[in-house]
């Protein structure tokens, strides 16, 4: 493999910013690939098979959310949004269309690199480990999740979130702790990240996402794994 630390697809119409991001990524040993147009993004993605996508939300052609949905439809590759509008619905919309994380402009190079690293970091695979929450079984090294024998496809981030909860089913995780464990934030950040991804995770693994049994909300504290019965 000639790949260094990983290939990063930068989808951004602002060429100056894209070039600058390229410079920073390259200096950190990543291999940047560029795309300036929302309509072409999916094609470039298929062609280059990146390990991570940096996606600007405001794009000519298809907008970032649409591109995000398209990529997510065929791949669980980490997607980090770049957004100038960190307020209100935009971020949540982006997260709901499948992005794993976001960085709001203006950001520092260190921050960008930290976010990219956090998403590319795959924990050193431990000894074969099987976890269960309720009737959900998780094959940690195999990255497989089944519910009642039916395989469920999760993105790496959702998988990490589920594993973090399942490893300590007796513990209630605050959103901040989950941000640190799953997203790699060292300081309290936007807890909406956790909220949105818990919803997404629930929509995949819960029988009734309105009344979750696997990922349970502990009011005023955070989340925990549901009771493992039987």
């Amino acid at each position, binding site marked *: 493999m000639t790949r260094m630390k990983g290939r990063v697809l930068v989808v951004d119409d602002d060429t100056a*910013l894209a070039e600058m991001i390229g410079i920073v990524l390259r200096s950190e040993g990543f291999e940047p690939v560029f795309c300036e147009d929302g309509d072409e993004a999916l094609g470039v993605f298929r062609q280059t098979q990146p390990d991570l996508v940096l996606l600007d939300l405001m794009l000519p052609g298809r907008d970032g959310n649409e591109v995000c949905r398209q990529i997510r439809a065929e791949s669980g590759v980490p997607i980090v949004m770049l957004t100038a509008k960190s307020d209100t619905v935009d971020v949540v919309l982006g997260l709901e269309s499948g992005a794993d994380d976001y960085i709001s402009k203006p950001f520092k190079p260190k921050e960008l690199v930290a976010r990219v690293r956090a998403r590319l970091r795959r924990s050193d695979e431990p000894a074969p480990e099987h976890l269960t929450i309720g009737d959900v079984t998780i094959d940690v090294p195999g990255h497989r999740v089944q519910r009642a024998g039916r395989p469920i496809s999760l993105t790496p981030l959702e998988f990490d979130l589920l594993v973090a909860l399942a490893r300590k089913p007796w513990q209630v995780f605050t959103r901040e702790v989950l941000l640190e464990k799953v997203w790699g934030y060292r300081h309290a950040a936007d807890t909406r990240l956790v909220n949105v991804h818990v919803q997404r995770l629930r929509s995949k693994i819960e029988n009734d996402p309105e009344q979750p049994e696997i990922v349970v909300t502990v009011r005023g504290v955070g989340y925990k794994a549901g009771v493992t019965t039987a």
Partner: protein
Amino acid sequence: MGRRWRLLRGRAARAVRSWLHLWRSSLQVRVITSTLAIGLVALLLVGAYVGERMRDGLFEARLQQVLEESARSTQQAQDTFDSSTATTGVEVQRLLRDVAAAQRTGGVGEREVFLLRAPGQTSPLSVAAAASNAALVDLVSPELRAATADGGQRWQSVALPVGADDGTPDGSDDAATVVPAVVVGQDVNVPVVGTYQLFFLYSLQSEQDRLDFLQRTLAAAGAALVVLLGTMTWVVTRQVVHPVRRAAQVAERLAGGDLSERMTVHGQDEMATLARSFNEMAAGLQEQIHRMEELSALQRRFVSDVSHELRTPLTTIRMAGEVIHAARQDFDPAVRRSAELLATQLDRFEDLLAELLEISRFDAGAAVLDAESRDLRDVVVRVVDQATPLAERRGSWLQVVVPDEPPVADIDPRRVERILRNLIVNAVEHAEGTPVEVTVGADAQAVAVTVRDHGVGMTADEAARVFDRFWRADPARARTTGGTGLGLAISLEDAHLHGGWLQAWGRPGRGACFRLTLPRRAGIRLTASPLPLVPDEPEPSTDAVPVTVARPRTDPAALPDLAGAHEPGVHEPGEDEPAPGGEQKATDVGADEAARDGGSARPARGGVAADERRPSSAADGRPRSDGAADAERQGVR
């Protein structure tokens, strides 16, 4: 008994009160009541007069008739006596009885006849009086008899017991029902026995019936008139009052924000003129407000767009700056220093832009509370942990007092953290090496945090202005320390978004105290804070000035003006609870409730708080005590 009386009195008092209320609140009730009262009095007077006249007229006519008839009959009886040949008592007795019987039916209608011996008659022979109805003889009063004895025809009104007039004596309940009657008397000369008095008793029953009928008719007509009057008044006042009421309703709805509300215009009368003028006013108002809203929205969008548009190039510049900064060791000193300046000023620029955006979000009403149930102690401890390195550098130490009971409240932790960070960093910056006390308190309604320092303090005026945007007491000093001048303004908005208070107190030389009070749940309106704002210290605190700055969030006119749009409400010296601000708070709380409803803890689509994450602190490990808050207080001193 006493209880019943009290009960009754209470009920009466309530009735009177409700009536008074109705009287005061309804023009219609007042007009109708007055009209009816006046009409009723007038009708009663007229009715009484007419009734009197009718009675008198009927009576006079009947009396005339009775007098003429009785005079005629008396003459007839006298003739009979004169032509009589009776000589003995028995004959006279029979004669009297015959005359009485004959005279009874001799008139036009039925009448009773009495032949009584005249008083003072001294004839030696006497016979019994004759009467057609002996039971009624008592009706002939001694006064009448005496008057009749003086000669001529005399009459008197009497009350005739009913039941007696048909001939059946009934003395037991003569008072029960009586009809008016007239007794007419005149002397007659009876042979042998001398002067007797002949009395006729005429019942006025038929006249009374007629009078009753007339009076009933009159009363019915009167009642009909009253009803008619009431109805007329009701209709008339309705015609006047109804449009006024409509106008009031429409005005109320207009005031409530429904600017498209209009009155309906009928015809050409005064009310139509009122409606037309009213509608013109409403249209003018609507247009004006619409224009202002448009202007305000335009300005807000402009600020927001500018901020957003600046972000992408700023990102590039910032990254380039960082790259240059990282490589500064390779440059000669001048370029190296330039790179450092570039980096620090970029930080400042970024902070300013971020806070400008945050403020514009508040102004646009786009800030939403992302509330969840949290223990305030955790938030305080986290912020204090972050501020500790700064405090160490400044030579102060942070002292935290928390209650044993968990001060749990529905708060937006991100915003509360931002407020506390601003306050604590602020206090550390101005403590000048003295300890900074952070106290957490709670009661049933609210949770509170006070941040107290013992630095140079500030004057009451400064405390009043400390939350103003870009406000600095000493601009020169603030410029050198950087900061945006928006930190405390944003904190205040954050507090308001919770429906809470953020207040400042300060005295030169005694330090300053900031107090954050938040309601435990949405919908609680704060009336008091669990913690005192003015420190409980030996020095007199009479000139302490707690300050609440409240700005109606719905006022679009206040939006474009970034600098100093607030009206600081200054409290009574020494007063702890912010009464003056309380009124303004009320409107704030309302807006905040709506905001809180929109932003539940769940990340529902569209209902999530605006977020200005500061990932810089996450990446470089720097405590998130940015210089913004520092500048606020720097400026104050």
